[in-house]
């Protein structure tokens, strides 16, 4: 399985994602510049975090028009797993490939800390190796990670199993304190209807070795590698 790690001007988690796939999991990974027009030969895509195009206008709003995004859409339509992390999540939402929107953190502050996530279910290419009664530790680092969605949309998402992860506390309960950004329903990550596109604010690629403080993020990549 070959994983494309997209690189936009302002991406800053591309190296971490590449390291997780290539060096930790020993799988094939390659950087793909945003001006490229094709993803032929790739089986999965990671859209990494950072500040593509300086977050101008709205986070992810400009990056969605990058030439590579048409190829990402095509690969997603073919059923390949696409994972957008942090700014990558914002790009997928702006591109209309995931529902809802990401607005300023309720605190108005940039938040950078470890969080715990609980997968809502294990019926997706990104959560198949996870345990839905367990929680997974990894960091968040963002200014606009507050997932916003209308009550109707939220109900439809729940019905289709499109909630991937929620923020939980040490006991595995969703609480306002455990939620770093005020997101609707304590949502940390969401799926498209087909469940092959995931967007999440926390950074699994920054939690892939014990020295990083957690290796829990690796489980998401393992799931993804097993799925494609």
């Amino acid at each position, binding site marked *: 399985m070959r994983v494309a790690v997209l690189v936009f001007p302002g991406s800053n988690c591309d190296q971490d994602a590449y390291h997780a796939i290539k060096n930790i999991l020993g799988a094939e990974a390659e950087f793909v510049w945003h001006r490229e027009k094709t993803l032929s030969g790739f089986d999965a895509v990671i859209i990494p975090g950072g500040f593509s195009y300086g977050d101008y206008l709205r986070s992810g*709003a400009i990056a969605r028009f990058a030439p590579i995004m048409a190829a990402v859409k095509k690969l997603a339509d073919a059923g390949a797993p696409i994972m957008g992390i942090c700014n990558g999540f914002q790009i997928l939402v702006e591109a209309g490939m995931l529902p809802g*929107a990401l607005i300023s953190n309720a605190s*108005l502050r940039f938040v950078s800390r470890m969080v715990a996530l609980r997968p809502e279910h294990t019926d997706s290419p990104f959560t198949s190796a996870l345990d839905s009664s367990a929680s997974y530790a990894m960091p968040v680092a963002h200014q606009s990670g*507050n997932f916003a969605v209308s009550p109707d949309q939220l109900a439809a998402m729940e019905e289709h199993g499109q909630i991937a992860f929620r923020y939980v506390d040490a006991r595995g309960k969703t609480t306002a304190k455990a939620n770093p950004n005020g997101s609707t329903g304590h949502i940390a990550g969401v799926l498209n209807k087909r469940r092959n596109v995931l967007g999440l604010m926390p950074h699994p690629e920054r939690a892939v070795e014990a020295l990083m403080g957690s290796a829990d993020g690796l489980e998401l990549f393992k799931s993804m590698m097993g799925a494609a």
Partner: protein
Amino acid sequence: MKAHVTIMPKEGILDPQGLTVGKALLNLGIKGVREVRIGKFVEIDMPKLTREKAEAVATEACEKLLANPNIEGYTLTIVDGG
């Protein structure tokens, strides 16, 4: 022609900037303020276009990029000037 575009968070969408500024006004002792909401103002200069064409272009810009319909609404006025 110029387009003046005002983009505002939709009703019901949390506006943390507006809330914080509203609280700051209260702390300053400024009275009578019920709510503050903060959006964006965009000016688009289209010197060679007619009013009708400018309005069509600006509308397309709003729909495709300037406003995110999930969370934002916009109003658009075309004004003379070049």
